[in-house]
Each structure stands twice: as structure tokens, then as C-alpha cells.
């Protein structure tokens, strides 16, 4: 018992200090986004439907991270929804594979107008390293009209937020 107590006292605190939850650049981008959404859409928030058209899931990790406690994108007026019927923005990742081409077109068709399509990641923008593969149709822009492209393999959450801001501004311009 004594040895245990002395061990506790001797060892002290060895956990790292809590990290600062404020990523200044990200918060800056998010605040801008929130202000823009508030200005353009009268204080209402936007819904995103994400479509994986054949990516290597790098973009999906980053998109998922947007929703976690650290980035907490919902405070900036963005949220993810499960159906294109509910979405304002379609984010598409990956080169469009032949298997997903039809599904992508259908999902685009089902999204109510006015819809904003954002290609996320190098694969979605250009076809990336898969460009020219027999399994790939091409970039997202080859299949459906794209409003904005966010390059990066994968793009960081802050990049995605900035890209979305540009996309919204451009779509409402």
C-alpha cells in the first residue's frame, strides 16, 4: 500500500498537456464561411451530401474529420445529410469509376436545384494518378457540371472549408 502511494507520488503527472483546440487558420476560414453563408442565405445553414465516386478514401477521412469535435463544422452552418433530396451541395471525391458513373448522374439529377457541385481531391479534379485507366471515366467534370474544384491528395479540412466558401461565393455570384 505504502509502496503504491510512494510510486504515485514519485511518478507525478506524466500525461501531456491538453492541446489547444483552436486551429487559428481553420477557425478563421470557418468564420468567413459562416459569415458568407449568413449573408448569402439569410442566416440559414447549408446541407452537404457527399458522394464517393471511386476515391481511395483519403478525402473521406478528411470530410469525416470535419464533423468531429475538433473541427466541428456544424458550428459554421454546414452539415452532412443522407439523401441528395435534402442537399444544397454535392461534394464528390475520387475519379469517377465506371461502376459509379450512373449512380453519380442519378444522385446529381435527384438533387434539387439550385445545386452546387464541388469536386474534392486530385482524383475528382483531374483523375489524379488514375487518369486514363480503363476503369475510370475521368474527372467529375467529365460526368456532371462542377462548380468548384478543391485540389489536394487529400485536401486538409481547412482547404475544404476554404474551397466550399469559394464554391458558394462563385455559385451565388
Amino acid at each position, binding site marked *: 500500500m505504502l509502496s503504491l502511494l510512494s510510486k504515485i507520488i514519485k511518478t507525478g503527472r506524466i500525461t501531456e498537456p491538453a492541446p489547444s483546440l483552436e486551429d487559428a487558420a481553420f477557425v478563421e476560414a470557418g468564420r468567413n464561411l459562416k459569415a458568407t453563408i449568413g449573408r448569402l442565405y439569410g442566416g440559414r445553414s447549408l446541407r452537404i451530401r457527399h458522394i464517393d465516386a471511386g476515391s481511395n478514401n483519403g478525402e473521406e477521412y478528411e470530410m469525416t474529420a470535419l464533423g468531429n469535435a475538433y473541427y466541428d463544422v456544424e458550428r459554421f452552418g454546414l452539415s452532412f445529410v443522407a*439523401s*441528395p*433530396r435534402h442537399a444544397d451541395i454535392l461534394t464528390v471525391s475520387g475519379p469517377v469509376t465506371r461502376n459509379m458513373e450512373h*449512380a453519380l448522374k*442519378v444522385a446529381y*439529377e*435527384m438533387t*434539387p*436545384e439550385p445545386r452546387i457541385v464541388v469536386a474534392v481531391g486530385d482524383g475528382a479534379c483531374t483523375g489524379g494518378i488514375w487518369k486514363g485507366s480503363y476503369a475510370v471515366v475521368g474527372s467529375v467534370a467529365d460526368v456532371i457540371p462542377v462548380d468548384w474544384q478543391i485540389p489536394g491528395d487529400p485536401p486538409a479540412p481547412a482547404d475544404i472549408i476554404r474551397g466550399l466558401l469559394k464554391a458558394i461565393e462563385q455559385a451565388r455570384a
Partner: protein
Amino acid sequence: MPTSLYLYLIEAAFVLPLVGAILALVLYRVHGANTATQFLFAASGVVGTIGIAGYFVSGQGNVAIQVISGFTVTPLAAFFLALVYLGTFLTSIYAIQGLRHYKKIYSIPWLNVTSALFILGMQATIMSGSVVAFLIAWEVMSIAAYFLVIADRTDDSLRAGFLYFLMTHIGFVCLASGFLLLAQGNVFATWSDVALGAFLISPQMLSVAFLLLLAGFGSKAGLVPLHQWLPYAHPQAPSHSSALLSGTMLKVALFGFIQSLFLFPFIPMWWALVVIVVGLGSGFFGALHAAVERDAKRLLAWSSVENMGLIFSGVGIVLVLRTLPDSPVAWSLAGTMSIFVVLHTVNHFFFKTGLFLAVGAVASATHTRDLDLLGGLARAWPLFSGVFLTLALAAAALPPLGTFFGEWMYLQSLAVAMSVLPTSFAVASALIMVVLALIGGLAIFTFVKLFALVFLGRARSDHAEVTTRMFGTLLWSPLLCVVGSLLVAVSAGSVFSDVAMQDAIGRVASLSVMPGASINVWFVFALFALVIIGVYLIRRAFTNVAPVRITDTWDCGTPLTPRMQYTATGFAAPIRFFFRSVLVSRKDLIKEPIAAGNPWIARRRLDSTIGSLWEHTLYMPIAYWVMRASTWTKRLQSGVIQLYLLFVVCALAVVMIIAL
């Protein structure tokens, strides 16, 4: 029109089906023989209808006219004859095209011979002037109907045909013994002889005769509990014959019942109560089974049980009201109730004939009558679906069709009866009204189901996917039925108006009408039109004016299949649940193991059946005791000839003792 001319027409209508039958046999293998035969049938219908019109127009519409020796046309018979003629006409113009796809299934010449005998039997039954003529004509009609039921010779048809054959002969025995009791054994008695002779019979014997006749006609008209054969037999016949069986033959049974009511010197109240209870019971069971039925034609047959039940309950109420002594109100109400009986008979004739023919057209295009496999026909046949919808509205007794006005008369009479008749009758009226409300609700449910599952949504199976256009002549008969139903609605105006009633009172001395029980038909039409316009305007006012982009349904990436739609079974589930004790519905989860030793790996199948309360409580016990009795009597059958000779001698001795 001179007397002789319309008599010739009625005689021609009697002979023409026979000519058609002979022609069908002479031109056995000739192409187009069916068309020629059906034209002759249709001609018989047209000629007969003109003849009946002549009969009424000539001013002799209230006297009996002898057509040929032993066959007379009375005003009552003329009304039902007109239905037979119209039914013949409507079904035969359908059959010209309707039978074309069935050359391999039916022997068409023989089918036409049977139809001719059937039509003839119905005409002869109605026109027969004596007991023997009636019984023979009735039997010709019944046997011909049996051959129509088994026309496709499938196992189902043979089983249904056997049930029908059995029931119709039980009915025939009841009729024959009832009539013979009344006629005191004189088979050749005319109706007036029977009516005169009935004064000499004791009231107990009269009651027995009445119950026998009710059972005999009731078994043909599909009254509970003798209805069990009807929903199985009627649908098995070719569609145009089903229409004739359900639309017309049931009316012949009704005619027989009403006609035999005039044979009794008096009708005590309890007979009438029996008729009302049996009628309402049939109405309830018919409506309930129709609501949970999956087979489109069988659904219509159940609906026939329901409607015949309503008509018989109306007849029963007329009889009750007639027994009330010195009550002019009751007599007036009896008049309005008779109007219901007449109107509903005509209405049921039109919508049931039309619906059977329409379902026949659907079945010949899709090769199925199962509502769980049909669907989406409205897209392929828009005009036809409109006609079907109108007929379904008529069957559900909704305005602006004739049925609504008939049933309105029923309800209105009950409402008046509740306020003016003594308490016990008022309570009875209220109870009848409750049952009518239940039946009416179930009928609406049934026909919403029928229309929705056949025409809306998407086809529930591959072969129900209709791409061909509808053949025009198949549409004519249902369309004519719609026109007929609308004409009844329009003419109901003059029937209800008191002026025409005065005229009717002049014609039929015993008929008088409650002024309170009238309804202004044009008001109903105007209300109907206003509701439609109102709904349209409200819809327009509240519909978003922004342009709407029409795309497909979001299917979450899984293609939408017809199996995701509502089915007839699913639609009727609440009804099945509420009435499960009456319906004797059973649901079994059948588990067939795939891997031996592992009970979890199994193929599971749901088997759901709807039974019949009457089959369990009445038919099966009787069958059981009949089998017991026959096994017991079998002991007498030793096969030794001496023993049989002994039986003969004993029988002779008994006969001698009784005779001496």
C-alpha cells in the same frame, strides 16, 4: 304498337338463341361462327328489349299476356325479362371479341350452345305460367349454368362446379317440395291455381313451404348460409358468362322469390323478419369477404352476395311494413322500399355486368385475376380505367351513379321509419341502418382496393405488364353499363318526384310514396359538380406556383420494384384483423429445414388463408354426419342378391299396408 307485334318480338327473342345454338353446331369449324352466334344472341337481346318496351308503351303494361301456351308475361316478369334481354345483349357483344383468345381453352361452339340454353332457361323461368314449366325451365337454367362453370375443365372449375351442382340441386329439391306443398301435389297447377289452393292449407304447412322456397331461391341468389358455392362457381365461368350468372341469373332467383310471395294468402311478420335477417347477414358476409378477397372475379362474386342480400333485406322490410294493419305511413314506406328494390336490382345488374366484363378484359390481357399480381393498367388503358372507375363508384354506391339513389331510398325510408313507426320498429330500423353503414363502408373499401390494385401503381408481375392497346369492342359493353347506370341516376329524378309517383300509383294500385322520402336528383348532381369544382379551385389556390421539376423517385441507389407496392393482402390486413374470428383467417409460418441438424437454417414461407365460418360450423358437420350415416347404411349392402330381393319384398309389403 299493336299487341301481336311485341308478342312476336318476345317470341323471336325466345327463338333466336336456339337458332344461334344450331348455327354454332352447323358451322362447327367455320371461321367467324362465334361472331355469327353472338350476333344472334345480341339480336335476341335487342328484339326482346324492344318487345318489353312495346309491352309497357302499348298501355297493356298491367295485364298478363300469354306469349305461347303455358308462358305468360306479367308486369313483374316483364321487368325481369328486360334485365335478361339486356344482359344477353351486353354479354354477347363482349363475347364476339372476348372469346377470341380462348379458342384453345373452351370448345367455343359447345360453350355457345350452353349459353343459348342458359339464356333460354332464364327467359322460360320468368315467363313460365305453371309449376311444372317453372321447375323444368329452372332446371335447364341451372344445368346450363353448371356447364358454363366447368367450361375450362380445370380442377378448380370442376371442384367449384361440383359444389354448385350440389347446392343447386338442394335448392331445386327445396323449390320442388315447396311448390308441391302449396299446389297440394298438383304439378300442372298454374300460379293462380296455386294461389287459390293455398287458402286451404294450414298456416304451419304454409310456413314450411315459405321456408323451403326461401331456401330454394336463396341458394340460387347466394343468401347466407347457402352462399358458399357462389364465390367459387361464378368466377370459373368465361367472363361473359360470369357477367350473365352474377348480373342476371341472381335476378331470376329474386324474381322467383318475389313471384312466389304472391302465392301466399297472407305473410306473417316472422317470415319477413327471417328474410331481413338472412338478407342483412348475406350483405355483411358478402361485403366482408369481398373486402379481403384477392381474386378479382371472386371479389365481384362476393359483392354479388352482398348486393343480393341488400335487395332481399329490402324485400323483407316491404313485407314487414305490409303486415302493419291500418298504418298508411307503413304502406307508403313499403312503396319507397319497393323503389329501392327495383332500383337496386337494375343498378346491380348494370354495374356487376360491366365489372365482370371489364375484369374479363383485364384477365384476358394479363392472364391473371390475382390482385397481388396486377397493377399499373391505367397507364396502358386510360379510357378503360375511367370506365372501370365509374363502375367501381357505382358498386361502392357513391354519387352520381344510380346505386347511390337506390341506397339513399333505403336509408331515407329507414330514417322516416325511425321517426313515425312504433318504438320496436324504430329500434329495428336503427339497427338495420347500423348494419347498412357497415356494409356500405366495406363496399367502398372493396372497390377502392379493386380499382387501385388493378389500375394504379406499377404491374406487380411481368405478365401483368400490358403494352398492347385495348381491343375496342371489349370496351363497348362496360361503357354501355356506365351509360345505363347514369341513365338510372338521371331517371331516378322522375321516379322520386312526387308527380311521377302519382302516375306510378295509378299504374300499380298498391304503391304509394312518402313525400319525405324523396330526393332531388339534380340537387345531388349539382352538389357533386360543386364539390369537384371546389376541390379543383382549392387545389389551384394552394398549389405552389413556382415551376416544379419532375424527376424520378429517389431510391437510395436500390432500384424501385413493383414488390415494394401495397398488395391486396396488405391492404385488407386491418379488416382481416378486426374480423378474424368471423373470417376464420389463418396465418402459418411454414419452416422447411435446409441443413439437417441445424434448426436455424431453414426456408420460411408464410401461408395465409381465409376460411368460411359457415363451412366450419354448418357444412363440415353436415358432411361429417352424412358420411357417418352412409357408412352405417353401407352395412346393408352385402352384395348378396337374396338380401336385396328381401328388401324389395319388404318395401312392397309396406307399400301395400299403407295403400290398403
